[in-house]
């Protein structure tokens, strides 16, 4: 799960990570009120969307005076913000953050993430703040300095000091940075984060260290013990069809192809997408129905897939282990009588009771195409989709 920059900064502030003073705003009035409360002359107005690269897209603007805050807020709220992370369709701006301007002397980077190659969390810093960190890590990997945190241990003061000195900090800056890094680690562990990134982390002209940005992702598996974090969820930032799918415990991700697919298991779902591509098609989605492929889940699956107008055929690929294929077959037939499916459906059932399942499919009056194996299924699904497309 992701949260907005202003929400992340609230968590930072409470833990002792210095952030600029500021307030969120959902309307022009609230933006002006925020400026009032800050009681200063120079502001930054920042669009709050779950994507980076906002500055380049026009989502971060400086304002001198309340009137300019009003003007910028008016233009920014409701705008469609396109960045390299939103895709060409962009994201609608519904919230702003009004902040004081910081007195920047240096721009750094700090981040915490899991290094799954050695099962340790890694604390990373770089002198190359303010630019895309992926680019830095690719082109100049030695400019990213890392400290690994041992399992069952916390970030140590000496590690935080090492990071601070590696950044070339000196004097009072070192103490401020160490305090900031320790506080960041506390946020990371207290809230079961899967990623924290601050880009840029700035050194001010008065030697303060301030988190000018915040990006936090949480481990979805641990959300059950963080109700306060769950409350921060902004569903408007998520793809509506994916939110809908979650209600039925379906794992759906929308893609841009024309062959819809419904599969049990994440690995097999990915493999099904791959084989569609190999046979000249393009998958319209990832959909893992999990271990419950009954009429109800299949019907919901159909509805979610068909909400995407690009879909020209639907491939159902179920490998029945514990799920019995005959039950899945009946489920598909029942679902087809409940939901109007106006594109060809290709079904491939394998595993437990596959033979009985194919008998049930053969005897059904519903229209669908039965495939004998994975390759056959992909070929058929791609062929009919491409024919329908013409």
């Amino acid at each position, binding site marked *: 799960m992701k949260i907005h920059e202003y929400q992340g900064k609230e968590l930072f502030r409470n833990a002792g990570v210095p952030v600029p003073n500021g307030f969120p705003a959902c309307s022009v009035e609230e933006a002006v009120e925020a400026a009032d409360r800050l009681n200063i002359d120079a502001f930054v107005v920042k669009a709050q969307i779950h994507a980076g690269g906002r500055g380049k897209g026009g989502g971060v603007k400086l304002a001198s005076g309340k009137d300019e805050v009003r003007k910028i807020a008016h233009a920014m709220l409701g705008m469609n913000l396109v960045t390299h*992370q939103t895709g060409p369709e962009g994201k609608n701006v519904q919230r702003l953050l009004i902040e004081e301007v910081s007195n920047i002397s240096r721009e750094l980077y700090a981040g915490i993430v*899991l290094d*799954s*190659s050695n*099962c340790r969390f890694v604390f990373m810093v770089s002198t190359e703040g303010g630019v895309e*960190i*992926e680019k830095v*890590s*690719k082109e100049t990997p030695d400019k990213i300095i890392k400290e690994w945190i*041992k*399992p*069952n241990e916390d970030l140590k003061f000496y590690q935080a000091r090492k990071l601070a000195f590696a950044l070339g900090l000196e004097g009072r800056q070192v103490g401020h940075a160490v305090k900031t890094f320790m506080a960041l680690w506390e946020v990371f*562990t207290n809230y*079961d984060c*899967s990623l924290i990134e601050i880009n840029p982390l700035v050194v001010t002209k008065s030697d303060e260290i301030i988190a000018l940005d915040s990006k936090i992702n949480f*481990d*979805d*598996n*641990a959300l*059950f*013990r963080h109700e306060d974090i769950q409350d921060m969820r902004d569903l408007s930032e998520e793809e509506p069809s994916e939110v809908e799918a979650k209600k039925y415990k379906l*794992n759906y*991700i929308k*893609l841009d192809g024309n062959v819809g697919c419904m*599969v*049990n*298991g*994440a*690995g*097999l*779902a*990915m*493999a*099904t*997408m*791959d*084989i*569609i*591509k*190999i046979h000249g098609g393009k*998958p319209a989605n*990832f959909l*893992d129905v999990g271990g419950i492929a009954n009429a109800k889940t299949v019907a919901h699956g159909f509805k979610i897939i068909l909400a995407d107008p690009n879909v020209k055929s639907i491939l159902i690929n179920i*490998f*029945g*282990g*514990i799920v019995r294929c005959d039950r899945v077959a009946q489920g598909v037939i029942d679902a087809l009588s409940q939901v109007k499916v106006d594109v060809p459906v290709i079904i491939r059932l*394998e*595993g*437990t009771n596959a033979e009985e399942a194919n008998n049930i499919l053969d005897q059904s009056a519903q229209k669908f195409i039965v495939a004998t*194996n*994975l*390759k056959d299924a*992909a070929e058929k699904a791609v062929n009919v989709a491409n024919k329908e497309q013409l």
Partner: protein
Amino acid sequence: MSILVNENTKLIVQGITGKEGAFHTQQMLSYGTRIVAGVTPCKGGKKDVNGIPIFNTVKNAKKLTGANTSVVFVPPAFAADACLECIDAGLDLIICITEGIPTMDMMPVKNALEHSHTRMIGPNCPGIITPGVTKIGIMPGFIHKPHGNVGVISRSGTLTYEAVHQLSRSDIGQTTCIGIGGDPIIGTTFTDLLPLFQDDTDTEGVVMIGEIGGTAEEEAAEWVQKNKFSKPVVAFIAGQTAPTGRRMGHAGAIISGGKGSAGDKMQSLRSAGIKVSDSPAEIGIIMKTLLNDSITV
């Protein structure tokens, strides 16, 4: 022969009275798995529906039944603790089926594993099976072919079944099949199992099923090259069409920070001399060809 589990495996089921645990206990028993005990705190002293004795603690279950392995069907919030209990009791092997364990909870488990002789498979995995001998987990037993010569290691669930099914259809039996799990932190990975298959005289080839995310496949490629792994390996990587930054079901299946793409993994495997199948439908056929080639040579 086989690796890790065989006829001497004496199994504890943790969470034997839960819905999943009870169902799969039945399934495993009918496959012939030697289940000697169940563990459910506060239900010790009772027996389950199959007459298997239930204990309050793993320690007692081990002491009184001689169990050496445990399979964990405990809910995600308590599963890491259940694994720690097994390590403390000194079991040889833990198979953790549970999906959805918080990463932060897995840290102490990983740490305890590093300081013990216990091995762990999973979490978030289908389990391990030596066909015809013992099945520990949730995989359908009947798709496997006993007395075989190919080992299977996979990060996936149903995709593993697909691969095993293709092997069996091609008349290739399996020595042992292991689902290592789809989480970012897992107990056992490709590089831990390849040496075991290297030493297993019955295993003549290995199928590796990987997926996007992490670097486990790259490390496996490196290991194969460095250690001159002598048996043919067929690999498939799921997620060639997966978009960057989106988690594809499994917590570990995500391409992030420009790392973990299927393309990179396939290239690493190929440069290590591993045969990579582009299509998930040709894993069985390719292994068949490789095995035939190695006979004629």
